[in-house]
């Protein structure tokens, strides 16, 4: 991987005069602090991060509530920008392979989302390995009660959960959606705006909703 240009964010921030006194300055220093120098204390304990990663913001893990350990396993030299959000729906597990770049992935995991090595995920991409809620109307009605603030979330209804596997060297275009049970083969290209509901063979180029194979260079 080539040498990175100098990061501008944190350096520029230090030059800003403190106009407000200590308390907010501390908060400012906390925000987006972790740029390669890991402070594991402010990440959830079940998040395991490899060496030489770049993580723009700890806010990426704000919605990670899964108690499983390991919960998130991130390989070496992974780049995760602040638009990326890791969310657990119940107990989830997410693994990201070495040298991957996650720009704006929203990963909602109930069971397992596996991202391979050298994967590129562009802006506003959504991964969900479950339906979140039952499709059957009467069960969904019970689900709304179980989700209410004073009720018991143990009574939530079973939903369809199937893990997502993304192979090595896959690129996923902006605003795509990858749904449960999908396996994307190695080296596949998912064009912008695709909705992936079926498996994609290795090396294929897919586009559209639902995503279907197209010839390389053909307009989706």
């Amino acid at each position: 991987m080539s040498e990175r240009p100098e990061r501008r964010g944190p350096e520029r921030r230090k030059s800003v005069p403190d106009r407000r006194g200590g308390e907010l300055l501390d908060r400012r220093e906390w925000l987006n602090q972790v740029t390669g120098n890991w402070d594991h204390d402010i990440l959830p304990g079940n998040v395991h991060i490899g060496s030489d990663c770049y993580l723009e913001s700890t806010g990426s893990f704000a919605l990670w509530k899964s108690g499983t350990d390991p919960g998130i396993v991130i390989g070496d030299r992974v780049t995760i920008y602040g638009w990326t959000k890791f969310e657990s729906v119940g107990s989830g597990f997410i693994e990201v392979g070495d040298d991957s770049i996650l720009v704006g992935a929203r990963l909602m995991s109930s069971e397992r989302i596996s991202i391979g090595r050298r994967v590129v995920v562009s802006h506003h991409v959504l991964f969900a390995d479950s339906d979140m809620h039952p499709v059957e109307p009467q069960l969904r009605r019970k689900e709304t009660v179980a989700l209410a603030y004073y009720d018991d979330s143990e009574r939530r209804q079973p939903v369809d959960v199937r893990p997502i596997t993304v192979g090595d060297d896959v690129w996923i275009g902006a605003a795509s959606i990858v749904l449960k049970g999908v396996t994307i083969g190695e080296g596949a290209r998912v064009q912008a705006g695709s909705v992936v509901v079926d498996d994609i063979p290795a090396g294929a180029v897919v586009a559209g909703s639902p995503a279907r194979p197209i010839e390389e260079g053909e307009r989706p």
Partner: protein
Amino acid sequence: MSPSYNLDDVEWFDPLPENVVLGEGTYLYSSYAFRHCMSERPCAVRVGKYTNIYPDTCFDLGPRGEVTVGDYTHLSDPTISTNGRVSIGSHCMVAWETVLADIAYAVPPDSRAALGQPEPDPGDTDIVLADNAWIGARAVLLGGARIGEGSVVGAGSVVDFEVPPYTVAAGNPARIMGPVRTAR
């Protein structure tokens, strides 16, 4: 009336980059929108008068990136990710979670080298919104998208071609659906 931007309600204290120019009466929610703006152009982002730029808008510009926005335009929260030119006219509306990107697999400029792709020729990947265009939520405009005056792009569409003036384009892949109804 001078441009206003809010540094009180958000946890971001950076001043605007020097190569960003906001016109009179323009509202910017936060300078956080420019945290990925790495353009080295003398004028990276020029915004006209009385334009509103709402939270979560992001100008994710490479060293050659350049964005111009006209007057009375509303940017809800587009992500503009380009190393070329993006030109947004006056009286445009751009809805939520839209992506304006010069390449389909758009990543911030400091990761582009890892893609190993040649930079596209300048000019090929320009994105142009003429005056009074309207972009629906979660639409994606890729390099080469030129939206004509008064045209409408439907929600969730993917457009990388020229849409004539006063035309509706929608779908994934996007198609020309017909003329915009006009009051005469």
